[in-house]
């Protein structure tokens, strides 16, 4: 596969390491009430869609950026790739 890196352009997927669903960005607050259930759902449950899937890829043999790649799991077509850091910030993650 070829991942359209937002900075570097098309990059061979072999340069990347896959993690999984981009929902892993939304890590719950460990000090909050009900953290145990929140972490269970966060870490273990997956939508696992047959279709568009937002997922995390790490450019390990490249610029070390984590990317959020939107890819169709039925066709492997990639429709979007963003820097995960930007996505994380947009989703309200900060310090």
């Amino acid at each position, binding site marked *: *596969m070829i991942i359209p890196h937002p900075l570097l352009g098309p990059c061979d997927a072999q340069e990347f390491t896959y993690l999984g669903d981009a929902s892993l960005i939304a890590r719950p607050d*460990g000090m909050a009430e009900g953290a145990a259930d929140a*972490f269970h759902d966060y870490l273990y449950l997956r939508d696992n869609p047959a279709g568009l899937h937002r997922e*995390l890829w790490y450019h390990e043999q490249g610029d070390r950026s*984590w990317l959020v790649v939107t890819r169709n799991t039925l066709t*492997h077509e990639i429709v979007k790739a963003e820097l995960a850091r930007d996505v*994380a*910030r947009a989703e309200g993650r900060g310090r």
Partner: protein
Amino acid sequence: MRLQHGGQIDRGQKISFRFDGQYYKGHPGDTLASALLANDVRLMGRSFKYHRPRGVLAAGSEEPNALVELRTGGRQEPNTRATMVELFDGLQAMPQNAWPSLRFDALAINDRLSNFLTAGFYYKTFMWPAVFWEKLYEPIIRRAAGLGSITTRPDPDSYDKGYLHCDLLVIGAGPAGLMAALTAGRAGARVILADEDFRMGGRLNADRQTIADMAGADWAAQAVAELAQMPHVRLMPRCTVFGAFDHGIYGAVERVSDHLATPPEGKPRQTLWRIYSKRALVCAGAIERPIAFANNDRPGIMLAGALRAYANRWAVSPAQDVAIFTNNDTGHRSAADLMALGVHVAAVIDTRPDAPPLAGTEVLAGAQVTDSAGRLGLRAVTVRLGNGQSRKLSVGALGVSGGWNPNLGLTCHQRGRPLWDEGIAAFIPGATLAPGMAVAGAAMGQFSTHAALATGAEGARAALADLGHNTPAPDLPRAEDAPTRITPFWHVAGTKRAWLDFQNDVTIKDVKLAHQEGFEAVEHLKRYTTLGMATDQGKTANLGGLAVMAELTGQSIAQTGTTMFRPPYTPVALGALAGRSSGRDFRPTRLTPSHHWAREQSAVFVEAGLWLRAQYFPRAGESHWRESVDREVLATRASVGVCDVTTLGKVDVQGRDAAEFLNRIYCNGMAKLAVGRVRYGLMLREDGIVFDDGTAARLAEDHFVVTTTTANAVPVFRHMEFARQCLWPDLDVQLISTTEAWAQFALAGPKSRAVLERLVDGGFDLSNAGFPFMACAEVSICNGCRARLFRISFSGELAYELAVPARYGDALIRKIMEVGADYDITPYGTEALGVMRIEKGHAAGGELNGTTTARNLGLGRMVSTAKDSIGAVLSRREGLAAPDGLELVGLRPVNPQSQIPAGAHLLAQGAALVAANDLGHVTASCYSPNLGSYIALGFVKNGAARMGETLRAASPLTGVDLEVQITSPHFYDPEGERLRA
């Protein structure tokens, strides 16, 4: 026989080759198949199941019959299609799947028993008695099955792989492919033109049609010459594009040296190319299909187009007298070409009642071939004429044409579904092709030469237009544009066996049986009968089988569907897929900075991931590794030892929020670590299981160096980057790996300070007060070399780790040995390192195996509840915090000289050896020369509460059973006085 004239062979040169022990001669330009036919060899192989005599069916890679074992020794290459072997001087080939000889094959008895060996018969028998399957039935079946053989000797040739990039990949260099490449190449596009044949031109080399008033082959040669002049066009003959993968990536194998006796020095046998194309045009042509009739598998019965190809391209014919059996006009073309070359065509048997006449021979319209004769080669065929009468024709070869199937393979690799085209009675590529892929020429069902040229040019223009380039339409050279005239005809009715899949011996009867038993779905049909599962993937067989099934179910072929063509298009050597990564080059080898020095010391090395590390340093007189290791341990604890610990991962962590970041990464507190100090850190995965451990050294307020275990250097860094970029993007933290930058040596033992004093430049206070346990500093050594010093200890001794830029690592180890000589400094390897860590009860690989918690390790209290760190929440789940969980303990054998094998299970004394009694297991074990006893670490349920208990340690697998006593895991200096000294 070799025809008098013609052919693209070099008649001026003769080359000698050997088949089945006989020497023959051929010419450059020949394939093994054409050369054998030229020498009147029609019998080339035996079929898989019935061991029927077989000759060549086709002239290309779709060949199911003429399979040979090519070459000898480690180069022996089974199942090689004689049609694809370019003849070279000294070639040796043997027939396969025949014993004792090709002409007389004992297992041809199967043919006589064929009525019992129908499709799937083996599912219905060989069940009684049950034990006979492995002992009797299966060994017999296995010996009988299989095709060619390998020697299992190492392949002496090398393989290579690489990557190519292009705007347009053109697959197949027939008229469509050549025209496409010309069109795109003339427009300046980067083009790759790949063809599996060694001579480009495709059918143009096999036909007598003209293009632009010259012979097709000459036009092809001219086109190739023009393309060769274009620097942005890469011509790749002998290169099979075998698979279409995601995002325009194609797999291809270039047979670099297969046409030579041995590869030239330094050259690979084959190269695997990963072709990254922006657009691809499949111009893979079409494959002729046979018509099934009784005994249609005899040597000499071939595809009509193949007969024509052999005559035109190689100037050979299997016989002087031939006949053609066809349901379409291309059969007539074969007959005409053969006659033009002086071959006698006895008749054209055409199933169509309205078959056109053909000058020079008799056309038997509405006729069918009903049977054939000739044990090892065709002698005659029986024809039922249109009027019902029967006629026998004495011929040595029969060319059969049931029509042509577009070569769909690559168009299906991304699960594209073909469509049925009634006009040509064949499947054509469907609408859902892989992104960027298009099809041209015969591969899309456009069978005339003109259509091939036109669609090839158009395909190239469309591809370039997609990429934003307007390309003018080329002037197409003039070429034939005959319409496809075919009346579908799949098989001749009859009661005798008629073959569909030649290699696997699948006949019409088998399909009928599959239908009768309910295996109607095409995938069931394929799996039950093995139709299309041979080395040719059913290229000539599948459609015939589908047609028969469609007849039986009363459905159309389109409704019946087709099985998926999967990669590879033709079989690919495993060596090519591996490329350079085989043998010792399977994976790179990482060497430590002291490697060259250690080799001079005769160190024994051990693989640690990709690293090679010194395992121990044997000295003269030591005959067993234990002697060396015991010595290294004792010397270190008595005086001083040195060990290369460069392989531990090192991560440079900087930024205003570095401390806060590490505080979240480690489960124990890191925020308040003072500058100049080091702390042990325990890292959990988010699921609460221990991920890794190491140290964090604070070099400055905003600068840490953390270490990881050797094995986890890469995953830990990845994890930290994930946390930095995805979880807390607004922390000011910068990470970079420095594992490779520093050579790091552990100096351990009571005299380590004394040695260090001789290295560290003056003015630095190494005293216990000045540089206490868990201190760190940037220092200068050896008169000005910058270095880092950490007072940390894995051995449990007074110990330091000293790091210098890796380029000085070799010099430093030599220097350390030099200045340490007065203290009898001893280098130690990973074994002694392991012994000392077990003596100290430090957790390592066997304990940190991805399933253990901090609590299991006795480190439960390290998991801070005062902060949110990765893994803290889920580490508190009931299953991970159960009171009877595994706890790390020390184990001492009741008999100190009994070894406790790692991997032994622990049970209560006297308990039976069953899982219900399992209390835990031994994770690491060694002989402790300091304690004069074997010792071990292990996990035991509720272990901390069992101190002093005696358990049974059993390893029935290795035949060991002994009694052990539970102790503290801190065998040696439990109070840690030595390391603080």
